């Protein structure tokens, strides 16, 4: 369960990185397309979101961001939370719950950004917080699991009593 916990926590962090990568990739593609005379408005946007007729190839980045953010990341965070119940390490549940809460908040802030662009700015900031938290959640497990490793001194300090 510890391994699963670690993998899932790191996966959340990796997914946050993917989200940043595909978003900026998509926006860069949009910029280039507009530079070449492309016109993006609601009709083109909806067409691209709906039937997959993509105005420029990097639009895929925006689609991936949406699917990842709405389904994949919440699912990983939820599984992490469930796995944490079975991970007998102090604080594992707490940090998994924090990661899950940040993921839920991230989604809600993201959708809020459709209406209030400033929420989009917060979405970007919260992504960094989520990345750091998920990474830490995975790392502290490694420390907690270290008794199985050579560093016994560190292990004894991290072992819950």
């Amino acid at each position, binding site marked *: 369960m510890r391994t699963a916990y670690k993998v899932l926590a790191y996966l959340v962090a990796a997914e946050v990185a993917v989200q940043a990568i595909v978003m900026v990739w998509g926006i860069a593609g949009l910029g280039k397309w507009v530079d070449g005379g492309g016109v993006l408005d609601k009709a083109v946007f909806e067409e691209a979101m709906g039937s997959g007729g993509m105005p420029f190839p990097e639009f895929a980045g925006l689609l991936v961001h949406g699917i990842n953010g*709405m389904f994949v990341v919440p699912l990983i965070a939820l599984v992490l939370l469930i796995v944490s119940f079975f991970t007998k390490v102090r604080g594992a549940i707490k940090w998994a719950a924090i990661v899950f809460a940040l993921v839920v908040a991230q989604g809600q802030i993201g959708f809020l950004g459709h209406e209030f662009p400033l929420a989009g700015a917060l979405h970007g900031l919260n992504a960094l917080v989520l990345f750091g938290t998920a990474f830490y959640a995975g790392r502290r497990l490694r420390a907690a699991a270290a008794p199985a490793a050579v560093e016994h001194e560190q292990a004894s300090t991290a072992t819950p009593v």
Partner: protein
Amino acid sequence: MIGHSRHPTHRGAKTGSPRLLRVVLPVLATVAIVAPLGWLWQASRVPAVYSVMEMGYLDYGGGAVSNPGGGGHGGHMEGHGPGHDMAPSRLVTDMVADPARPADVRVELVTRQQMLSVGGQSVPGFTVNGTSPGPEIRARQGQLVEVQLRNESVTDGVTLHWHGVDVPNAMDGVAGVTQDAVPVGGSFTYRFVAEQVGSYWYHSHQVSNPQVAGGLLGSLVVTPRAGIAQQVDVSAVAHTYGGVRTINGNAEDLRVPARPAQRVRVRVSNTDNGPMKIWTTGSYRLLAVDGTEVHQPTEVTGRSVTLTAGARADLEVKAPSDGAAVRVQLSKATAVIIGPPGADTAVPPQPADELDLLSYGTPAALGFDPAQATRQFDYRIGRRPGFVKGRPGMWWSINGHLYPNVPMYVVREGDVAVVHIDNRSGEVHPMHLHGHHVVVLARNGVAATGSPWWVDSLNVLADQTYDIAFVADNPGIWMDHCHNLKHAAQGMIAHLMYDGVDTPYRIAGPADNQPE
């Protein structure tokens, strides 16, 4: 390996009950998370076959309540059969144009599924009589239009919905509500009297999200008996195929020859899923909105018209007397260029302001009194996480409910209904009520002061409210949905039913009816 003996799993063996707790608690916590999700998932699933009459809950809007057993709602699907003590219920199939009257305009439309060539690209789509858009149907006011639809090769089946025309219910073309989808090799005949003058369009209402996006549509124009005042009359159907913006199916600008000083009526239809801005070189008059004439429209300069998904606008522009051209921009991407052959002009800058139809034109009689409304409905649009048809996601809600647990608005013939639309979903929605025209009374609580603003497709922005009214004068079962057809497919569909009307058709079932 000293640390290994101090492994935390060692500690659980101290007493029996903490150990049991350590096993049971995580399982309980897991169940506490998974069970509600499972229940929500299960509850959101829809039967393999169902009637829209069984969907959601009845909303009488404070008006008269149905006779018990009437209408067939909530498991009373056999309610129109004999042996029930109730008002005789009618079927949607009863609502037809006079069958004895011969047709004045007769059209055959053949639908095919094929590749389309758009702007040098090849995209999968649909054609009507070999083209997309299909042929424009023109009728004079009062003529009986008869359209024979034949489906040659659209595998999912097709229907035709006459968007904006308040046809008899049986002719509304909604698969699973007013008819079965027409399978490959099948046909269906639509008949209606073109009483309403104006610009309309037709499109499939079977699997409508991909079929309309793929071009299964065309224009329908009803001209007044006395003709129109403009010398040139042109339709511009805006559609996006595979990311390519077009007018009347062409990726190039639409050139309309006009002599100097001639007045041109440009009938713009937005057949896409999102709102579109229209603006012109110089000035224009907005003659009609969704087919209905604006009362005393004034000349407009420096403002754009917002045309929501499914909506139409008739603009009057004048070809300059010096022989130059004018442009009617349908967004920045495409334009109608009016003037002598070969003439063109610079793209006019997109105005920052838009024409406010709440105060455009001058007031006129509505023909009914909204203050005497007998039904008051709410149509609150939200967005929340949940399950629809067993799929997780962020879904559109209507009055807090997700599809199919949405309201069924109930009216009786002769009712005056007002609807309060409140969009709290964070995104724009083009709201479309079938079979009726609604008049805007107020937006964000500010009363309308211009020409009666009649619409069938209303652009409701995030955080906007609209108060609209209509007269219940067209019995049947009518969709009341978002015309961003992707949103409709995601469950943003309610219905308006007349008390005592039932449908023999079913969603899904043998005909595989899927109106969205």
